[in-house]
């Protein structure tokens, strides 16, 4: 039996991961930990699993594996505690708000010989996996360029800290650049080397971080890609947002709408899209637990989290410079 704890519930995904864990045989959910009293109260309103007031208490209750869902700036401190206790870690993305913290998270997990996975669920999305297969098989020839979008409603609907420059480390760029960077790195096994970015704060000008962002990434194999990370889906949009990628090659083009497995539903005057298809979060949690059980190696590591975070941080440097910058 693998004993699993959810460390921090500030991130909206904590609820979904709990539901994912419940479906897996051989998993015992020890509970959650959360230092904010109001978040603990909310947790207990929604769930029957206990929530501890400190991360130490949850560790002391005995856990083999942890899913870290604190605010991004708290990832490092929690992971350091977990690594010291020999607990395997799945950390919510982005790995940290700085390169230094991301590197420290990787180092401490390596030194303590615990697993470290970054939560990049899109790797487990069937259409994204199909994109990788198409590239492996040269189905559209040599890749020239990608145009990606990972747009969404402003996530302050879920939690205010997503637009807090300290807790989240930034806004739309920090939130939405890393998924597409990770997909492209995985698809091509190539590293980002140059980043140019534009940001603005016209959407939701009341928040303190950028809400619009357009990032161009150059890879070491010569491919370039754009990533629209804007929080440009308005209130009333039928879902949280989405992720698309178009790949242009020398022999053709493919286009992915990663969340196309949906119904269009109108309910009491509101439009909404409801998902009926594959569940990438479930597949990601299954994969992590399988790795903890020793059934397979991790497909997504802390290094993947670091590399993607570096691009987001380079984007901020580019905005300041007004020019492309090296990663």
């Amino acid at each position, binding site marked *: 039996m693998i004993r699993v704890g959810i460390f921090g519930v500030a991130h909206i995904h904590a609820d979904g991961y709990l539901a994912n864990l419940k479906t897996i045989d051989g998993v015992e959910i020890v509970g959650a930990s959360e230092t904010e009293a109001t978040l603990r109260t909310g947790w207990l309103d929604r769930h029957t699993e206990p929530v501890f007031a400190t991360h130490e208490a949850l560790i002391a209750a005995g856990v083999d594996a942890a899913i870290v869902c604190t605010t991004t700036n708290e990832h490092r401190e929690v992971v350091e505690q977990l690594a010291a206790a020999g607990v395997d870690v799945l950390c919510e993305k982005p790995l940290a708000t700085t390169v230094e913290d991301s590197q420290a998270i990787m180092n401490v997990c390596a030194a303590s010989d615990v697993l470290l996975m970054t939560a990049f669920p899109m790797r487990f999305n069937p259409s994204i996996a199909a994109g990788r297969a198409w590239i492996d098989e040269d189905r559209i*020839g040599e890749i*020239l*360029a990608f*145009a990606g*979008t990972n*747009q969404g409603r402003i996530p302050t609907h879920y939690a205010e800290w997503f637009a807090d420059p300290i807790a989240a480390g930034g806004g739309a760029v920090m939130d939405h650049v890393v998924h597409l960077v990770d997909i492209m790195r995985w698809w091509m096994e190539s590293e980002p080397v*140059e980043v*140019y970015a*534009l*940001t*603005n*704060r*016209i*959407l*939701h*000008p009341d928040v303190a971080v950028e*809400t*619009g*962002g*357009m990032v*161009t990434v*150059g890879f070491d194999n010569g*491919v*370039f*890609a*754009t990533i*629209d990370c*804007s929080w*440009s*889906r*308005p209130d009333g*949009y039928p879902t949280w947002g989405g992720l698309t990628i178009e790949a*242009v*090659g*020398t022999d*053709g*083009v493919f286009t992915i709408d990663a969340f196309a497995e949906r119904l269009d539903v109108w309910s009491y005057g509101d439009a909404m899209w409801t998902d009926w298809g594959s569940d990438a979060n479930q597949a990601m949690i299954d994969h992590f637990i399988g790795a903890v059980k020793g059934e397979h190696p991790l497909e997504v590591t802390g290094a993947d989290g670091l590399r993607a975070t570096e691009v987001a941080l380079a984007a901020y440097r580019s905005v300041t410079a*007004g*020019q*492309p910058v090296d990663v």
Partner: protein
Amino acid sequence: MKLRIGIIGAGNMAAVHADGWEAAGDSAVAVLDADAQRAAELAATTGARVADDLDDLLRSVDAIDICTPTDTHLDYVVAGAASGVAVVCEKPLARTGEGARSAVAACREAGVPLLVGHVVRFFPEYVEAKARVVAGDIGDVAVVRLDRSTYLPAGASAWFKDPARSGGVVHDLMIHDVDYAAWVAGSVTRVYARLAGSIDGGDHVLATLKHEGGAISHIQASWAFPVGSFRTSIEIAGSEGLIMRHASDPFRSLVAVSPDVPDVPAPPTSGESPYASQIRHFSYVLRGKATSRIAPEDAAAAVDVCDAIATSIVSGRAIEIGEKL
């Protein structure tokens, strides 16, 4: 009274424009082309005569309509202005921003109208999106995405495939959306772009634009798409809402694409051809019944921005508009 139009150049666009003038109640009265045979063919279908030379054409018309290769536009604009006739010119106004600005100056000094064919401003979905923005339906424009992806026509003329003459995919194709982005999001202040070329010469460009007032645009222009395909899309996100028009054609077929694809691909539209709408508008402007939807300065600015995009592609740097290239 019919306006007498002299059409310069007798290629694909000339025939489209001639139809437009006919539909607007005007007529092409003279045609000029270096290829006499081609000029004669267009003249025969429009009831015009073949002009002996440029001076002969300029003496017999109220307006010239320039449908020649891009790198020859400037000379014809200047000649038209010098002879006091109104000037209609296909986009881009000139091969370079500097040339485009001198074309604008020549027409202004001569006091003749200059109407540049940025036809996207007449495509109904683009007109409607602009109207919604102007009406304030989505608040302040923040992030714009425009896409124009198609194939490099196999039968395209040599000049068209020669970047020195046409400017390539940036000046010929992307300029449509460069102009539209500025129309809906304000003047462009900085650009950054990357280009990839496919084996058959079909270039693919992604550009990001910064606008005065802070809006951001992403423009994809491609001649690297599979033969037979043509796709455009519009997305405009604002502080109070969102406009999207993706390629969901009213009629979609699932049959194999015919290998006989047109040399000049164009998106299908129901109703009047946007080219005809544009010429009808120009006709109204020349008759003093309307103000031009396309200021000459806008047409020149679009070429300046395309020059900056081309420079960014070569230099790998972001380029400020107005920076010496």
